[in-house]
């Protein structure tokens, strides 16, 4: 079985069978990261370019490690040190790169749809590493892999996603994916951070933490995005933390074997208490490990095959 599209732009249009394929493949790739020689020759001679117009530690390093473990060559371009600073447009940047014949381009950009533009223009496979507040498909895939690994399944689980839903591409992609896979998704946050009519995505909306995480199997806390707020959407971080952070008191409302997730980086004391972030229910670091496996699976599935 193979993926039907040459690109990975989002979860919205990704069929459930393909999500299963990616997760199954990723599960096998985990083992490679535990070997002494963490390399297999599958993508030998292929070139993967990561084109990041926004800051990133996790995602970019994860893609780079994934590509290198498959023996591909990687090139990292960050906008701040490239000709973008001289005014070069996205499309020109992409066309120039295309002329050097890479195989896969991974792009993160602050504008929604940036990855889609490249996908339409270039013959290379394009992977969306985050486009504005739109989608972040590899994050959702690694989150689903983590849930599947820890809980044995996704179908029928209650997953609570808490935070600035409106500005979160992680939330959006996870909502698409988890609803598609049959989970019962509950979202929660300050009222001005919950998009109107979001129930149409198949989720339940709660405005209080207690209601949201009651009996949840999975609680996913989103980062309070200090750099993305132009306007003050809440009075203070303290007030946000008082109402919407996950701590040892309210976590008792969730199921006893609840798993706590966070896409990172974690603002301890803001959206999540330190003892919860580092505690036994937390699977935050496993998410990171699964991220490498999922990205390896995606690079493998998208490359090669019939042109």
């Amino acid at each position, binding site marked *: *079985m*193979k993926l039907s599209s040459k690109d990975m732009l989002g979860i919205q249009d990704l069929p459930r069978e393909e999500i299963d394929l990616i997760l199954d493949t990723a599960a*096998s*790739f985990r083992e490679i990261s535990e*070997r002494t020689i963490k*390399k*297999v*020759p*599958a993508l030998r001679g292929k070139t993967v370019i990561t084109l990041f117009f926004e800051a990133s530690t996790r995602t970019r390093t994860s893609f780079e490690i994934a590509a290198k473990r498959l023996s591909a060559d990687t090139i990292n371009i960050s906008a701040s040190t490239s000709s973008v600073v001289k005014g070069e447009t996205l499309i020109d940047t992409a066309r120039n790169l295309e002329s050097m014949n890479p195989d896969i381009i991974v792009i993160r950009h602050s504008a929604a749809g940036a990855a889609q533009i490249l996908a339409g223009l270039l013959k290379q496979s394009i992977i969306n590493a985050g486009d504005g507040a739109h989608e972040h498909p590899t994050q959702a895939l690694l989150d689903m892999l983590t849930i599947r690994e820890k809980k044995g399944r996704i179908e029928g689980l209650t997953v609570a996603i808490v935070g600035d839903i409106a500005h979160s591409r992680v939330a959006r992609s996870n909502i698409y994916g988890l609803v598609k896979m049959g989970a019962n998704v509950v979202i929660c946050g300050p009222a001005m951070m919950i998009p109107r009519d979001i129930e149409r995505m198949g989720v339940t909306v709660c405005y209080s933490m207690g209601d949201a995480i009651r009996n949840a199997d999975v609680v996913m806390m989103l980062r309070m995005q200090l750099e993305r707020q132009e306007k003050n959407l809440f009075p203070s971080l303290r007030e946000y933390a008082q109402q919407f952070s996950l701590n040892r008191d309210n976590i008792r409302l969730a199921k006893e074997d609840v798993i706590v997730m966070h896409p990172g980086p974690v603002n301890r004391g803001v959206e999540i208490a330190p003892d919860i972030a580092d505690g036994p229910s937390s699977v935050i670091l496993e998410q990171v490990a699964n991220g490498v496996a999922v990205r390896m699976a995606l690079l493998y599935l998208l490359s090669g*095959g019939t042109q």
Partner: protein
Amino acid sequence: MKKNKVVMDAEGIDRSLTRMAHEILERNRGTDNLIIIGIRKGGVSLAERLSEKIAAIEGTEIMSGTLDITLYRDDVLTTGIRPPIEKTYIPFPLDKKRVILVDDVLFTGRTIRAAMDALMDFGRPALIQLAVLIDRGHRELPIRADFIGETLPSSLWEKVRVTVTDDRSADEVVIEEG
């Protein structure tokens, strides 16, 4: 009309495996540092059977593992059909170990080439020996088996199918006219 011919039945397979187990022990003078590694998918059950037989003969447990060679194939990106990757399970470094690679059918030799490249990434084995149930000829690489159940001359258009499962009475080797 496709003609199927059963060339080995359950008893025959069992006898061959018993002989091969003895040969492996004879050649390696016992089980010191011996590891049996089955190549997915066809070699896995056979490796289990050989391990059982060797353990029964010598009265000791024997180290074993499984190897998925998909990512080392020479056609990994060109076949279009992507074989699902299963797990490789080799939980110890292979330095100084005597590895017995096990597969069901030895044909072009490309699988074994891939398997050896994969094994080298797990350490430096003292030696690698190859045990196969069927050697059907038509090598495309200079590879040969050390322990062979049966040599089965075949035509390129024929398919050799080995069935070795938990239902041991259903074990068989069938040659199908392609």
